[in-house]
């Protein structure tokens, strides 16, 4: 009995010690920077390095990377951005709004080295941090424009440029900036989509705002795939100009593409069954427009 107690005690203290060393490992801030838009922190926990915006408000990590296994994508939502490949399997011209740590464009560049990738990021400081700490590099086929996504898309539309894979992943202080949520913006995005293009928009699956956003996308694109995973608080809106393909096509494509995505840790085979067209939002909500887009006010409610 006594021995058993001792054993328990030593086990408890061992666990305690483990927890202490863990937490010691946890808190190494390797870079801090105040940009015009946000506080940027780079925090390393063991091998895992994360980009965190506005750390004092308890915001979550924007991007994490395993410094010893850089290919592996860590967050569900980053992996979910690849679900668009089920609709457009071989993108040639890709637009990504919002750089973060740059893991998403790097993975796309790795997968499709011949595709032209344009990234738009409003904050120069984020570009610098992605390059310095997250192994992001521009190359002949991949470049970053420091600009507002709305301005970039509008100008691309006027110049007649088209993309066949567009990822909207631009987040500001609280959420997606208001002017990147409106019907007018989505119409402008539509203008720069090729006929077979896919649009992948990263949004949150919680908050009252979910309804407004869903209604707005529906107004512009009609039916879309709603892509949610139990492991993630994000909801991807995946849509194209043509009517959505049947599930059979998605499954066939996922089988063909899954091997090439394995090294990034993207479980593409699981995705087709998660793409839903069921309306699970309040259809009576108001469409967001340039005239009416109180997004940041709605979010808290």
């Amino acid at each position, binding site marked *: 009995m006594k021995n058993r107690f001792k054993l328990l005690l030593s086990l408890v203290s061992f666990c305690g010690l483990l927890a202490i060393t863990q937490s010691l490992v946890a808190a190494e801030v390797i870079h801090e920077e105040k940009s015009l838009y946000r506080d940027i922190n780079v925090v390393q926990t063991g091998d895992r390095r994360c980009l965190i915006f506005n750390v004092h408000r308890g915001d979550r990590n924007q991007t994490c990377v395993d410094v010893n296994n850089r290919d592996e994508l860590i967050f569900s939502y980053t992996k979910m951005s690849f679900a668009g490949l089920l609709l457009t399997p071989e993108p040639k011209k890709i637009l990504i709004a919002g750089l973060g740590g740059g893991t998403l464009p790097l993975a796309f560049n790795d997968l499709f080295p011949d595709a032209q990738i344009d990234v738009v990021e409003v904050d120069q400081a984020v570009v610098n941090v992605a390059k310095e700490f997250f192994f992001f590099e521009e190359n002949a086929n991949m470049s970053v424009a420091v600009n507002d996504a*709305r301005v970039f898309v509008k100008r691309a539309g006027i110049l007649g440029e088209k993309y066949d894979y567009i990822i909207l992943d631009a987040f*500001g202080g609280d959420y997606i900036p208001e002017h990147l949520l409106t019907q*007018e913006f989505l119409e402008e995005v539509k203008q720069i989509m090729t006929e077979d293009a896919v649009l992948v928009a990263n949004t949150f699956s919680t908050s009252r705002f979910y309804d407004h956003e869903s209604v707005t996308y529906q107004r512009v694109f009609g039916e879309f795939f709603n892509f949610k995973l139990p492991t993630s608080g994000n909801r991807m809106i995946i849509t194209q100009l043509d009517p959505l393909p049947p599930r059979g096509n998605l499954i066939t494509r996922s089988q063909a593409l899954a091997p090439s995505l394995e090294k990034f840790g993207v479980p593409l085979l699981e995705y087709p069954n998660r793409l839903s067209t069921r309306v699970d939002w309040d259809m009576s909500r108001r469409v967001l427009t340039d005239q009416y887009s109180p997004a940041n006010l709605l979010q808290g409610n």
Partner: protein
Amino acid sequence: MTVEMLGARIMAPYFGGSISVWGSLITVFMLALSVGYLVGGRLSTRNPNPKTFALFFIGAAISSIPIIVFADAIMRPIFLTIEDPRYGSLFASIFLYFIPTSILGMISPYSVRLMVDSHEHSGHMAGLLFFVSTIGSAGGTLATSFYFVLWFDVNQILWGAVAVLLLAGSVILLINYLLQKRATDSQVLGYEKQI
């Protein structure tokens, strides 16, 4: 301030929501107000009267209407000719907001002149006016950013602001008319009595 808060929203579709857009907007509002103060002060030295005062409100209301009606027509060519959104938003701010804001700036110094009847009271009156106008600005900012954008379209709020300015102008004209009428009536009355 209501217009200023909405100003950024109006320009965002063309010039984005970057911090330089706010910079342009605030710069132009400050420049316009300073010009307005100067001109308003100068005008107050020449026969100050409530009618001119009322015209400031009506002028500001009318010159605000293009923000609602022609915003796209004004911003599109600027967007097409100026590629840098910093200068684009600066020029757009000038064309959209300079005139109404400078007219609004004329109100403060002019009302000081109308309300001050002696040198001793001038500081007190000016303080009171700054107090009222700045409290009003704070209220407009808060109401617009917290509530109006949640309840109304941007253009509806702007029409509301135009209506308030027109109403203020008309009330001043009406009061002025009634006071003048009473004055002439009593003059006529006094004249008749003398006879």
